[in-house]
């Protein structure tokens, strides 16, 4: 292997006397940090830190939060239990048990539809795969917390009820 065009010896710049005496350089550094300090003291409100629980960041409209299931006009789930989402899911977190729908035009409906939120990687492939726009991740909910693991496995009723906050 050849390293044509690259210098074989890296030449380092010799430090001048004042640089190697440290003192002046340290004073310069103190000036830099002092400038930050004074600026932040005078303009406390302009710091980039977001005071989280009280103030929240605005996320983009494409932000993928917790899932929700969409409803038809009559309130029944839009899902037809086609298994596309559970098949495409890379984390294998969606479990659907299909049942026969009384309306022959619809064929199937989900008897159960559970998502294990601890396994979900929030990739959004399920909502991409869904042929009838039944599952969406547009709730914007990202604070998902619970006391025990079982609570993170959410069922159809929970997912259909779209007005909940992050507490499971």
């Amino acid at each position, binding site marked *: 292997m050849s390293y044509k065009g690259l210098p074989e010896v890296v030449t380092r710049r010799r430090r001048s006397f004042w640089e190697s005496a440290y*003192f002046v350089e*340290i004073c310069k*550094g*103190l000036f*830099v*940090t*002092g400038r*930050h*300090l004074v600026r*932040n*003291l005078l303009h406390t409100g302009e*710091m*980039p*830190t977001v*005071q989280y629980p*009280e*103030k929240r960041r605005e996320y983009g409209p494409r932000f993928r939060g917790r899932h929700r299931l969409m409803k038809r006009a009559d309130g029944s789930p839009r899902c037809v239990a086609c298994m596309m989402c559970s098949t495409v899911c890379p984390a294998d977190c969606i479990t659907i048990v299909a049942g026969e729908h009384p309306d022959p035009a619809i064929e199937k409906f989900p008897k159960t539809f559970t998502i294990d939120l601890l396994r979900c990687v929030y990739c959004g492939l399920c909502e991409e795969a869904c042929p009838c726009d039944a599952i969406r991740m547009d709730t914007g909910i990202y604070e998902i917390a619970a006391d025990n693991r079982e609570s993170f496995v959410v069922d159809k009723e929970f997912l259909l009820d779209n007005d909940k906050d992050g507490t499971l």
Partner: protein
Amino acid sequence: MVPVVFEALAKIVFMFLVIMSFVPLLIWAERKGSAFIQDRTGPNRAAILGLRLAGLVHPIADVLKLVFKEDVVPAQRHRVLYAFAPWLVMTVAMSTYAVIPFGDHLRLGGREYQLVVADLEVGLLYVLAVSSLATYGVALGGWASNSKYTFLGALRSAASMISYEITMGLALMGLFLVFGTFRLTELVHQQGDLIWGWLPRWGIVVQPVGFLLFIAAVYAETNRTPFDMTERDSEIVAGYHTEYSSLKFALFFMAEYAHMVIGAALIAALYFGGYQIPWLRRELIEDQAGLLLTGLLAAGALLHGWLASLYFRRARREKGWYRDAREREPGVLGAVALVIGLALLGSLLLRPWSLGAAGASVLATLLQTGFFIAKIACFAWLFIWVRWTVPSFRYDQVMRLGWQILLPVGLVNLVVTALWLAAAHRP
């Protein structure tokens, strides 16, 4: 005999309280200052009834946490030395203050009190001797923990002590040559003089190189960045106190900050005139005491009024931010500032301009002690400021700096000082 004991006890308690109140303040300054330097907000959550005091409640929370934490100890430790080391470090940190004068004298009830715990003839030597004793605590703690990291930390501490104690001694020798005394009270007293009628005869003015040497040595002795190799996280975990937890760790931690206060107090006393207020000699303060007190009270009242207005403005701005007890904070602080300001304003009615001679003496002492404490605070802040500015030296760089640069420079400084003095005092 008894009054003497009481006098000494009162001074010791005073110094102890000053240092012990400095420690949490410095921890707070370190956390909040570093945050502001790095464009962060820093601690601002711990609150008592909604009062957060910009994070000042956090040190209290930290201490409570450390007190109630489980004391995890290594099984193969040396039992006696392991328990003894933190106390040794803390005791040594405290005892250096004995010789540092925190004021000229206090005249109370016809008696004059020297404001120093022990006015030793060999004060400077005492400082050198005791400050290097702290390394014993560190070395013992590191060895008794029976862990490689703590052992390495202890070794490094001993090495840096040996290297930088010499520099410190040489710097102090220069000071000794100029002022001709080891007695710290005398040394600080002489720094009240003026050279050519306008330049304060401070240590930094007569020994500028010595000051740089001394400050480097103090930073190395207190194990602060850029010389923090005894506890460098990336190399040896937490250094000598890796195996300590709970209250014993708290002692080490507090001793570190107490050492910082000593370092700052020494720099202030030796090189920045101690309790001396530049261009404001004690006689002048006592002469113009009434005027000064009036001015101070008025300035204090104005300052508190301004603070109150700031807080009230903040209270209006932050309305509806938190929706809990924290919302009352700016209002409460503003009210406190307003009450203090009004009290100061009211005290002007007591005719402070007609202050008697006894009061004048007390005022002069208070002013000088206050000035000394302010100087300590400035240099303690410098410790923190440097830590969050400068990256630390490698171990070999620390040794090279100590032996190959600071030591020769210290020797040259000593010789030049001696020659200069000999030339100046030629018969």
